[in-house]
């Protein structure tokens, strides 16, 4: 029997039928949708990295007695970098598995994926997605937020003269001193930032739920044994921070609102 007849007989006998077209279409479109999804996830990583880089305490890093390089490496968002690289690798593998993915050579494909992720990530950063992600993580997982944003840890060293936290209570204790209670999940206990008339404040003042950075000195209230931090300078948590303008500004003593509006930082 010739092979042609044998094949046709086998199809007939075993009732072999072609696999439905929709299954292949599902796979084809599924792979491209997955590519798009991975690209967007990678771009979220880029947007977050750009956001964190621009808000990386460039205005105070030398106050921490660090060189620019040491500061850069100690605050690099390694988890975001890892997520971005993972998405890039998965995107590469995914595109390779598309119907015509084999046609692309590795290097141009990697550069195309990298370039597209970076461009899309920059776009997302400019519309504020990086900041939204950072805010979301900080609000929903305050205890783990420093894994995504290592500067939270770098700013949580009152013994070195730097403290960060979210303002939960503002209490005017006298005409000249204000106690600002801050919440910082990386530090034990409750921290009180003491604001004196000589303290340099942000031009917009301090509001409840603001995240602040304070430069100063750790002290301890002997009576209450609470952690206190005598602030010389209080800065908003997220500033562009490329120009340490606060150093040049004259001392400003702005009224601290007791019931300020909540700001998204």
């Amino acid at each position, binding site marked *: 029997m010739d*092979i042609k007849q044998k094949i046709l007989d086998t*199809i007939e006998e075993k009732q072999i039928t072609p696999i439905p*077209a929709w*299954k292949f279409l599902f796979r084809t479109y599924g792979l491209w949708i997955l590519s798009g999804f991975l690209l967007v996830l990678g771009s979220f990583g880029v947007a977050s990295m750009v956001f964190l880089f621009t808000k990386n305490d460039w205005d105070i890093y030398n106050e921490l007695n660090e060189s620019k390089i040491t500061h850069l490496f100690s605050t690099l968002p390694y988890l975001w970098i890892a997520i971005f690289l993972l998405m890039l690798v998965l995107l590469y593998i995914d595109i390779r598995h598309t119907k015509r993915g084999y*046609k692309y050579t590795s290097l141009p494909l990697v550069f195309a994926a990298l370039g597209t992720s970076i461009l899309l990530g920059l776009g997302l950063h400019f519309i504020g997605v990086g900041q939204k992600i950072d805010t979301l993580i900080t609000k929903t997982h305050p205890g783990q937020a420093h894994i995504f944003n290592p500067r939270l840890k770098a700013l949580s060293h009152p013994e070195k003269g730097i403290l960060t936290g979210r303002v939960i209570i503002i209490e005017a204790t006298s005409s000249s001193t204000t106690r600002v209670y801050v919440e910082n999940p990386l530090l034990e206990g409750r921290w009180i930032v003491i604001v004196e008339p000589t303290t340099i404040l942000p031009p917009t003042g301090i509001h409840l739920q603001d995240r602040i950075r304070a430069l100063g000195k750790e002290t301890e209230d002997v009576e209450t044994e609470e952690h206190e931090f005598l602030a010389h300078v209080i800065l908003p948590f997220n500033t562009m921070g490329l120009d340490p303008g606060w150093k040049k500004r004259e001392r400003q003593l702005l009224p601290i609102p007791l019931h300020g509006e909540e700001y998204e930082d």
Partner: protein
Amino acid sequence: MTDYSDQTDESLALLSATDHDAFGALVGRYEQKLYRYIRRITDASHEECEDILQETFLKAYRYVHNFDPLLSFSSWIYRIAHNETISHFRKRSVRPQTIKEEDGTLYLQNITADINIVDDIDREALQQQLQEVLSSLGPKYKDVLILRYLEEKSYQEISDILKMPIKTVGTRINRAKKQLQEIVKTSNIILTP
């Protein structure tokens, strides 16, 4: 029985899902070519080659809706044959490969034309050397050489069959040719500039 002689392979492939005779016509067009190709990339027996060939066509039939009309049908069915052959021998872990004696002349004719070997060399000796070189080449080089010099496929077709970028096909062919040239050189065979 319908006459499909004026139909292209691609249009027959599209008809195959609903028309067994159209698929039969495709089998008729490709059974010899694919049988020869399977024989060339393995050292399998006649029966084994027929089994692989049958599996190739049955798979092509089941996957006919996955045929990409932007590809040539020939490249698509060669790809299936190649993959089926690999799968068949995966159990053995090694795919036996030798260059068949009957292919030697065609191989020699095509490959020497490509590397500019002068005409007055001892072709019989060269053929012997070629077979030695080719049997020492890895499967990835041998596969492209067989498709290029025995199946006479273009770089584009080889790229579609082996699912690799054209650039890689070119690189592999060039590397294989360089190795071949090295052997030719050490054997004192004169090459044209």
